[in-house]
């Protein structure tokens, strides 16, 4: 095999990547969205976090469907939220899923409260895009959504999280039901996407544990735990609103 030549010009992938950020900034805030655990937070990936590291792959083959990988990704990027299971909200940035954009998520969480969290788009091109999460999210993860053509010429669509639970609280929740919920979430998303293209193909799931160990340095991540903060917000909101109302009356 001949070695591909390298060039000294600007890398071809430059426009596909976000710039590094110190802290996340939410530029647009839909009325219904709650930004409790995103603005000001750092990004975390599979090298941070607390629990064992998993590589998961949810995959659906769109056999019999005449659609290119880039068309699938274009539609997925434009309508990302619409393929999610009910009860979960993805507030897409105005500019869509593009490198550097931050989106707010309000999720039905395994612990009962609606979880206010978010993602940042770290990479996007014609056939794939990738999210990372802020501190406090249930996972320290990198999730890649992609499509390609397999050896038989069939378009294959997949979601590939590389993830750890973010802190001991989330690890406990994940062990009880969270990991299975996560599997069901992406399986439902891919079924919904496949149905959009007229396919009822089954979703294949493969799970590999890359590192079974805990990262004990991640214990302190619990300080940012989005479920605890979302729960406190839900409990204290009436009191905060009352306090604000009283302060206005005094003016």
């Amino acid at each position, binding site marked *: 095999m001949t070695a591909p030549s*390298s060039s000294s010009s600007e890398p071809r992938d*430059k426009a596909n990547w976000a710039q590094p*950020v110190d802290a996340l900034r939410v530029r647009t805030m839909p009325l219904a969205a709650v930004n409790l655990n995103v603005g000001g937070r750092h990004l*975390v990936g599979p090298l941070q976090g607390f629990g064992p590291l998993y590589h998961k792959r949810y995959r659906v083959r769109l056999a019999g469907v005449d659609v290119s990988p880039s068309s699938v990704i274009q539609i997925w990027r434009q309508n990302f939220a619409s393929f999610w299971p009910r009860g979960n909200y993805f507030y897409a940035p105005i500019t869509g899923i593009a490198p550097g954009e931050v989106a707010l998520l309000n999720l039905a969480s395994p612990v009962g409260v609606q979880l206010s969290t978010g993602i940042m788009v*770290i990479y996007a*091109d014609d056939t794939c895009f990738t999210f990372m999460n802020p501190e406090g999210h249930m996972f320290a993860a990198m999730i890649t959504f992609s499509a390609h053509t397999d050896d038989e010429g069939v378009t294959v669509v997949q979601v590939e999280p590389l993830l750890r639970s973010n802190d001991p609280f989330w690890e406990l929740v994940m062990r009880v039901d969270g990991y299975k919920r996560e599997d069901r979430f992406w399986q439902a998303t891919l079924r919904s996407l496949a149905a959009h293209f007229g396919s009822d193909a089954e979703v294949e799931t493969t799970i590999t544990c*890359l590192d079974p160990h805990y990262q004990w340095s991640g214990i302190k991540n619990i300080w940012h735990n989005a479920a605890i903060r979302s729960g406190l917000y839900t409990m204290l909101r009436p009191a905060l609103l009352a306090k604000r109302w009283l302060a206005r009356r005094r003016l």
Partner: protein
Amino acid sequence: MMPANATFELRRATDTTSVIVIRGEVTAFAESQLMDAYNRATGEGAQAIILNFAGLDYMNSSGIGLLVTLLIRANRAKVRLIAVELKEHYRHIFELTRLNEAIRIFDTEADALAALPAF
């Protein structure tokens, strides 16, 4: 699947250090070649592996995922992974994904080799 448009040339720098020279495109399609180069290096007894990115001219997010996976394998095997010759753009990607907190980065192979006994 498309074939990988990348090469991973392995050479020995010292008795315990190998260099993997990466050229071309690091994407999901390069997985088996990269892992093969890593396996050959550790098979030869490498305790430290220098990834030389001078010839890297394209990397997508699956490529970064590959490097994360490689790093985890190396950590578990107590093999040190070092990156050298990263262009500014790829340094930014390492920063964005926080890979720079887990992989030591040096400007050149010589710098890495000089620093190796110290960490």
